[in-house]
């Protein structure tokens, strides 16, 4: 098992953002993390990425208690812009190069061009769409074992969405695991293997979509409406 989350709970003030969540992820799969805004998807991702500390419960990465060394193997893309404001796009690549051994500078350079960005652009001058593309370019230029993408398609135009999905599909193989949170169900329907449904910080169900289509003929949207 690549990732084990056992009885995870995270309190924010008096509210449980994640509530007694137990979830196992395998290597070589693409998971869709699905739920309303504020259902705990981001909090869960941030806990796995090591940014947020669980109030209770534990996270094991390949059987080992999650620690800072695992960040070399886990790539997390947050929803918000987070690059240092003094950086330009070239600097962002240099930063990743400096800290992540799995970062592929050549690929980053290609992606930048493909997504219509250029190295000289200042991070703080980017539009939200361009900022989203930059985050993806940096994150997907890593050959990480576990890739956590929080709302990667938000604020991205249709053409770039296709680009980005193609990038994920090229990268995702038997050696890595992708978790993609989104509420654009139609966009991910055909390639997500498991839907992880979360509401109020609780795991409702983990569904193998292909077997569900086989057994009950329900689409992802059908299942979503039934469960939520």
């Amino acid at each position: 098992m690549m990732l084990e989350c056992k009885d995870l709970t995270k309190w924010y003030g008096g509210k449980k953002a994640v509530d007694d969540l137990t979830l196992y992820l395998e290597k070589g799969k693409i998971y869709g993390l699905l739920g309303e805004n504020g259902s705990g998807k981001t909090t869960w991702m941030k806990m796995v990425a090591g940014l947020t500390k669980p109030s209770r419960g534990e996270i094991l990465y390949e059987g080992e208690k999650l620690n800072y060394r695992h960040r070399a193997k886990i790539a997390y893309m947050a929803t918000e812009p987070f690059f240092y404001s003094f950086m330009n796009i070239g600097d962002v690549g240099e930063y990743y190069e400096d800290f992540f051994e799995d970062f592929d500078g050549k690929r980053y350079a290609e992606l930048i061009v493909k997504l219509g960005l250029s190295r000289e652009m200042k991070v703080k001058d980017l539009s939200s769409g361009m900022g989203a593309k930059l985050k993806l370019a940096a994150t997907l230029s890593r050959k990480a074992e576990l890739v956590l993408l929080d709302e990667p398609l938000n604020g991205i135009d249709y053409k770039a969405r296709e680009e980005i999905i193609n990038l994920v599909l090229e990268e995702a193989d038997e050696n890595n695991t992708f978790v993609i949170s989104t509420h654009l169900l139609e966009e991910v329907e055909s390639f997500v293997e498991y839907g992880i449904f979360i509401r109020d910080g609780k795991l409702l169900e983990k569904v193998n979509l292909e077997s569900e289509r086989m057994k009950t003929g329900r689409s992802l949207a059908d299942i979503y409406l039934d469960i939520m």
Partner: protein
Amino acid sequence: MDYNTGMPIYLQVINDLKKRIVKGELKPGMKMPSSRDLAVMYKVNQNTAARIYREMEMAGYCYTKRGIGTFVSEEDNMVEDIKKEMADQLLSGFLHEMADLGFDREEIMTQIRNYKEDERDDA
């Protein structure tokens, strides 16, 4: 490709590939896309892509040379068989639906004939 999201994706991709074999877009002996390329082409994950080739291989539509890739089967009659099989499938579905609407064989034949004539009128 537009999917019917209530049906297993891998079956729909297999169907599409079979159609392309019938249409001659994929010729016997031709190298098929790698799993990676297939995944991107059809917007599926690589596990599904691998499953598609596994199933197609079992059905005899293609074969894999280790380390080289997957190729369209060169067996005699394969294309004809696929064509017939797919036609059978379509017909069976069509006939079932029509039977549900209360048409018998004869009436269905008439319907088909009339439909053709309608088309000619249009043209």
